[in-house]
């Protein structure tokens, strides 16, 4: 006689260490199989878009740091590119290289966090996480040299960057570029062919490409499903048109592929930083723009970058005033969550947290 089971609804979060922030999942289980899932968020909503309407164009940069706080440089970059499009200006080449170096270091740091916590979610109890944070710490130290802050950087400005990099930054960068590939190889050897990682992640929660596209998924999650779509290649901004790099793609879009794509992207980011380091030449790092920017009335711009989580864009509308009339943030974390249901339903409780970790969401960006 079959055993009759009864579905049970459980709250995961909002205060739960493995939901990556204050994020709640209302999950209905049949035994340990997920039959229904509803993501609930908004706990970190600070009204960034409304606040942006009350600040001038330069002041808004500080708000962007606090969106995806694991990847503030790319947030600055998206916003600054948006404002530059509004004004119709281009930063000088040295500034473009500095921005690219900062953004790629940030991508490495952000992917290291993603990889580390993904493994933490698998139950590795800290060791790989600490390996990841070892590299990230050095990057944050370099950011401190650039702008005096590790997380809330506000380093980029419309028309360039705030300051030129000090000499000690270049020394630290050279040391990093020399030492980090070896450290990262250690991590790769430890994880990429690891039996336990493979068994726990291969074939779990696959995301078909057509579903990913229909759900507007972007970034490593989209690339893991097999499409080489990267805005750094497709619409090159800053110095990406002047450097060479590959776009790694997965085959099955399962948890392992999402993890693997991030590992490969760290390698590509290192390639980009190396090339920028060789190509960068002395020069001005910032355009002479007025302190208070006033774009033309009616101007609008869609400033878009490939941030570490996916396509991050700022849709800015100007009314000729000193503050944006509208500053809409297209946040990759929020939109990537559209596939939560697709990823989780039918899989077991033990894989739920891992699959969620493989999407790499950041609540600061989901809720804004």
């Amino acid at each position: 006689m079959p055993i009759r089971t009864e579905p049970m609804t459980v709250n995961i979060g909002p205060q739960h260490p493995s939901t990556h922030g204050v994020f709640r999942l209302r999950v209905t289980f049949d035994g340990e199989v997920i039959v229904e899932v509803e993501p609930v968020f908004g706990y970190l909503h600070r009204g960034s878009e409304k606040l942006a309407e009350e600040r001038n164009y330069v002041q808004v940069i500080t708000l962007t740091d606090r969106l995806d706080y694991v990847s503030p440089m790319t947030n600055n970059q998206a916003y600054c590119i948006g404002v530059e499009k509004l004004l119709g200006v281009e930063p000088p080449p040295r500034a473009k290289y500095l921005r690219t170096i900062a953004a790629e270091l940030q991508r490495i740091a952000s992917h290291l966090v993603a990889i580390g916590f993904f493994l933490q979610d698998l139950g590795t109890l800290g060791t790989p996480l600490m390996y990841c944070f070892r590299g990230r710490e050095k990057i944050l130290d370099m950011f401190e040299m650039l702008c005096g802050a590790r997380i809330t950087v506000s380093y980029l400005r419309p028309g360039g960057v705030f300051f030129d990099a000090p000499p000690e930054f270049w020394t630290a960068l050279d040391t990093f570029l020399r030492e980090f590939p070896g450290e990262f190889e250690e991590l790769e050897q430890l994880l990429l062919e690891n039996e336990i990682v493979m068994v726990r992640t291969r074939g779990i929660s696959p995301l078909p490409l057509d579903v990913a596209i229909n759900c507007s998924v972007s970034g490593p999650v989209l690339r893991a499903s097999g499409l080489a779509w990267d805005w750094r290649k497709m619409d090159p901004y800053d110095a990406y048109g002047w450097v060479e790099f590959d776009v790694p793609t997965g085959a099955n879009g399962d948890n392992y592929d999402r993890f693997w794509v991030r590992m490969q992207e760290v390698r590509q980011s290192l390639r980009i930083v190396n090339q920028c380091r060789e190509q960068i030449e002395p020069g001005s790092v910032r355009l002479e723009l007025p302190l208070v920017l006033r774009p033309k009335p009616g101007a609008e711009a869609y400033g878009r970058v490939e941030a570490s989580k996916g396509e991050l864009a700022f849709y800015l509308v100007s009314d000729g005033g000193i503050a944006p009339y509208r500053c809409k943030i297209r946040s990759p974390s929020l939109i990537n969550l559209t596939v939560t249901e697709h990823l989780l339903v039918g899989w077991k409780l033990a894989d739920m947290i891992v699959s969620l970790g493989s999407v790499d969401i950041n609540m600061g960006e989901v809720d804004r």
Partner: protein
Amino acid sequence: MVVSALSGREVAEWLEAGAPGSVERWQEQTVWVKPPSIAEVARFLRDNPSLDLQFLNSISAVDFIEYFEIVYHLTSLRQQHTAVVKSRVYSREAPSLPSVYHVWRGADFQEREIWDLMGVRFDGHPNLKRIMLWEGFEGHPLRKDYL
């Protein structure tokens, strides 16, 4: 630049053929369509093989006081071009337009967010409830008259 932007004129001409009477006007890289026809327009934009706009980048809403402008940024991943489609909704009490949820599933959270913060309803959205704020919150904070 690998990705090119479709001109408003080009998109408007396609729409005149595929969804007659839906276009209001066009300018540079933007097409304005009539709000009631947005779902039909969306389906045509996605399914027409030359336009092939199967990726919805974002939906934004802007409050221009006399009207709300809903902006759709679209991309074709195969044809490698982008398009911008806008729609103006003239109502402050009960602004609404059809949902594109069934065309692009990626519209789900974004339409809910616009309803929550801007107060524009999307007819046909299966789960249109507040997303950032809690049920019972009064008003829509991103509107210009909300202080």
